């Protein structure tokens, strides 16, 4: 960094501020995760040990592996991934076109439409739970991963539509018009120009949809019996488990989100800078 390299006191003060800020933010995110990991790997004694040591006294993967082998955990984990995948795919596939339409076209009832989209979040799931369960049983979606994914999509969709609207608004209209003039049809212009530039934002939308689905407990608990998602499963099982089991479960809940965000991190930074100005 040029500010850090400059020997002036103003520059170095700024650098100190910058780096201490970074350190605090990192600690904010990493320390809890680390403590959970410590609890999960520290074994029965490590969990209760106080004061905590920076490095665990004895690492043992045994409780974690034991937890993984517990009946239902692996299945629940896969169910959670499945429901999240359904949520991510559907909310981007349905939400992004809605966001594009909101960003680019003026149509009658646009504001009303936006309000309606948000209103889907105004219905508490608790009220919907019973009728939803009944109709899911009727259609045959009850106790399936796809059923949970669909409900999670409903939760994530308003968010996806409104966020992608902002993303598409951020891609200058002139770029799209230039593409039309230079030989693109509307779909071609979208896939060659708009989509690549909107990719960071679309990736962020996918991350949030994933997290919404992954963290959701209530609908998942109500709508499943045997094919539980991880959150729903842990909620019922962990209450009766020893503490280090609970930490292992917590870690298992955290890890996929972290890995997923890490995987799409490239798109979370606007690498080209969306605006051409």
């Amino acid at each position: 960094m040029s500010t850090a390299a400059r020997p002036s006191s103003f520059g170095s003060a700024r650098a100190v501020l910058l780096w201490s800020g970074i350190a605090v933010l990192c600690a904010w995110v990493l320390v809890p995760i680390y403590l959970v990991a410590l609890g999960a790997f520290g074994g029965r004694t490590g969990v209760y040990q106080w004061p905590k040591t920076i490095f665990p006294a004895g690492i043992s993967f045994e409780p974690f592996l034991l937890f993984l082998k517990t009946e239902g955990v692996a299945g629940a984990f896969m169910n959670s991934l499945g429901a999240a995948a359904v949520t991510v795919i559907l909310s981007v596939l349905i939400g992004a076109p809605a966001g594009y339409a909101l960003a680019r076209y003026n149509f009658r009832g646009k504001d009303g439409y936006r309000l309606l989209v948000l209103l889907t979040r105004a219905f508490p799931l608790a009220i919907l739970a019973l009728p939803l369960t009944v109709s899911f049983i009727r259609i045959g979606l009850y106790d399936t991963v796809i059923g949970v994914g669909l409900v999670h999509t409903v939760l994530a969709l308003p968010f996806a539509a409104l966020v992608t609207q902002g993303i598409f608004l951020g891609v200058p209209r002139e770029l799209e018009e230039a593409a039309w003039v230079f030989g693109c049809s509307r779909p071609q212009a979208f896939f060659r120009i708009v989509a690549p530039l909107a990719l960071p934002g679309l990736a962020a939308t996918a991350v949030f949809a994933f997290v919404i689905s992954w963290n959701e407990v209530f609908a998942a608990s109500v709508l499943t019996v045997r094919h539980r998602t991880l959150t729903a499963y842990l909620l019922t099982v962990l209450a009766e488990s020893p503490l280090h089991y609970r930490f292992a479960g917590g870690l298992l809940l955290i890890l996929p989100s972290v890995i997923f965000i890490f995987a799409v991190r490239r798109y979370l930074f606007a690498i080209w800078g969306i605006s051409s100005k």
Partner: protein
Amino acid sequence: MANIVIDRIKKTFGTFEALKEISLEIHDGEFVSLLGPSGCGKTTLLRIIAGLETETSGKLLIGGTPINGLAPKDRGLAMVFQNYAVFPHMTVFENVAFGLRMQKADQKRVKSQVDKAAALLHIEPYLDRYPNKLSGGQRQRVAVARALAVEPKVLLMDEPLSNLDALLRLEMRTELKAVLQASGTTTIYVTHDQTEAMGLSDRIAVMYNGRIEQVGAPVDIYSHPASRFVGGFMGSPPMNFIRLPVTNGTVKLGNTHHSVPVHTGSDIVLGLRGENVARTPLAEGLRLDVRVAEPMGSHLLLTGIIAEQPVRVILPPGETVRAGDAIGLKPDADRLIWLSPETGLSLNHPKT
């Protein structure tokens, strides 16, 4: 290359008439500017020609072929946008090649066309860079190169220089003229800057309130404005307008009588360019009470009062005039513009 026929094009937004039946023919290889203040409809007209906006009624032809209703890509034109609209996720090479790639041109043609356009606009050193590493002027060149690379029948430019700083704008203007003269492409150029339009165009269409006020060569429009609006919009300082009484079919300027095409008893407006006057003795000429004298080096700019109305005139740099002086001016009799005080239209020659 092709000619363009704009035939009674009308555009309404709700109840607002942005364009009121505009007709204009642009010849093959001609450079025509649409000039006017913001909101006059010039950009709307350009976007209708490009196919980015749909006309309410009227016909458009390029090279004799009607293009109404065609998608922008099927009109055989290229466009340079106000904000350049250079694609940020492509290198300069890919930007310039974009139109050719969409035409599925073979690799050899893409390469040669891009090289040609890049050489013309001096952007060869940047072909591998991304646009965010370029300055505004360089992006502008990329946008122009992208448009020329496809060898369009018609080139449309929407205020392409307005985002550049003053010095760069002047430089690019000269260069643009040289490049476009070399390519011989039919060009429509939208601008609100009258010096740009004057310098670049074969013909200028001055627009105001959704209408074309006057079409003509830059010098004609400058010297023979068809209306008060055109006279006031062209030139810096703008044309002076002095309202004078008419007696016996003549107007008295100093001790000279000029016959005018207006009945006795009414007034007439004299349109007078600041540079079309010469100094004479006070007793013989039109009396100017000087309020401010600004020596500009190349000329002397005087701001003052003639017949109780504010005017600005230009004299040779050698004249010694100070604020507070009263001097005599003799207008060039061949360059007087007579305007109707009611309609603002020129009475000198039939309206074009």
